[in-house]
């Protein structure tokens, strides 16, 4: 196995570990609010976007 593949495997394990931790604590940078959530954006956009 290539050394780069071993490094990639370690990288994947790290990604999975971070994913497990964020799943357990419910963290996401894509949340609408809460701790360190980016939020959905401003208020008041209403009305259809149709045409």
């Amino acid at each position: 196995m290539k050394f780069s593949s071993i490094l990639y495997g370690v990288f994947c394990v790290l990604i999975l570990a971070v994913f497990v931790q964020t799943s357990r604590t419910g963290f996401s940078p894509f949340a609408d609010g809460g701790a360190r959530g980016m939020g959905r954006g401003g208020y008041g956009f209403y009305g259809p976007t149709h045409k």
Partner: protein
Amino acid sequence: MTAATSSVKALNCTSCGGTLSLRAAGYTVSMVCEHCGVTLDTTDPQLRVIAQATAALRRPLIPLGTRGVLRGETWEVVGYLERSDGEDGWSEYLLFNPYRGYGWLVDDGRRFNYGFLLDSLPDMDGAQIVIDQGRGLDHDSGPYPVEVKFVVGEFYWRVAVGERVQVTDYVRPGTTVSCEENDSERTWSKLDLLEWGEAERAFGVEPRRPNSGTPSPAEPSPWRDRLMESWIIGAIAAVTLLIIAAMSSGTQRLASVDAQVGLEGAPRTVVIHGIQIAGHSSAIRISAQSDQLDNDWIDLDYSLVDKRTQESFDAYGLAEHYSGSDSDGSWSEGDTRPKTRLSSVPPGTYDLVVELSAHRWVQNASTSFFGAQTGMVDPNPTLVPVTINVDRGGMFAGNVILGLILILIWPGFVLWRHLAFEQRRRGSSDDDDDDDDDWDD
């Protein structure tokens, strides 16, 4: 092939008088003087001149007489010629070992190939040829004309500048088999691609570095192994991530409340008390449901307040539904069940404060920013029911997508490099119709 008698024999060129070393005496048929370039007949005791020099002598990268050990065999460079197909040129070194016979070292300017004449005809298997009962070789190019452009040293045939043959190439990863034909004979030779620096180490010349030049048709992609390994690892990691996501997607209902809000009426505040988040931080999902909206919207301002610290997690939701018709027919849009996600809310006891305000959408009125369209409050508004649910847990789709993207970056990069290499490799082949599936085996 064996050599019963072999010795280095000193001769003098009959044209220029220069001293020559006949290294494969007994095998060599013709010899090109390394001093003046004339071709001599070594089977003639008088060293008859076969052909006059036609080009200025050039010095081969590997000098004649150089000895080296290549793949366990000791070879001496006895001849050198340069050939061209009219577009590309390459160099061929004739190697000699008295116990092994002749071998070839072919330099395409980028990599070296090492091989021999075949002593048996290849088997034909459809469009492929098969040698040594091994894997087949696909037709790559030819027949195309090849001409000798320069020659020096000694050879087992009467080679001269201008000699022409028709060449047909068959390839598989790492191997080329060439058929060379002229009016009198047909020969088959097999060349194996050497590793980077292998020939240079054997014959003591400056090693070349792997570069991005045009690879030969037989050169396997250096990214192929990485590609296989990275996609296997990536697939395992991606599946694992999806399994973890599925296992973590469960939710727990913490609270639910039914409320009503008046259309164009005064905003209403609803408070859900005593929401318990035990154990560890977790995601909170606040979902509203108002299925009776019809060209209306409801603004939902959420504040999840920690009763102990008064820390507030704020978010916003919008329930809406619009419909109408135009020249294309009827249309409808909007989400009457918006979900708002809070990230990583610490454990504790919370109150959820929801401020609701419902509005009618009137076509042709301002529909851009902030505030109701009329600014007026209806004292007797039509009431719209809204259900608000608070759930703990669940999976953020954005986290899953981000994880998959991070996992697939490296395999994607390797695939891109592999395809770029294959494109360059195929660009060096004449036969674009070949099936290249074998190259990814």
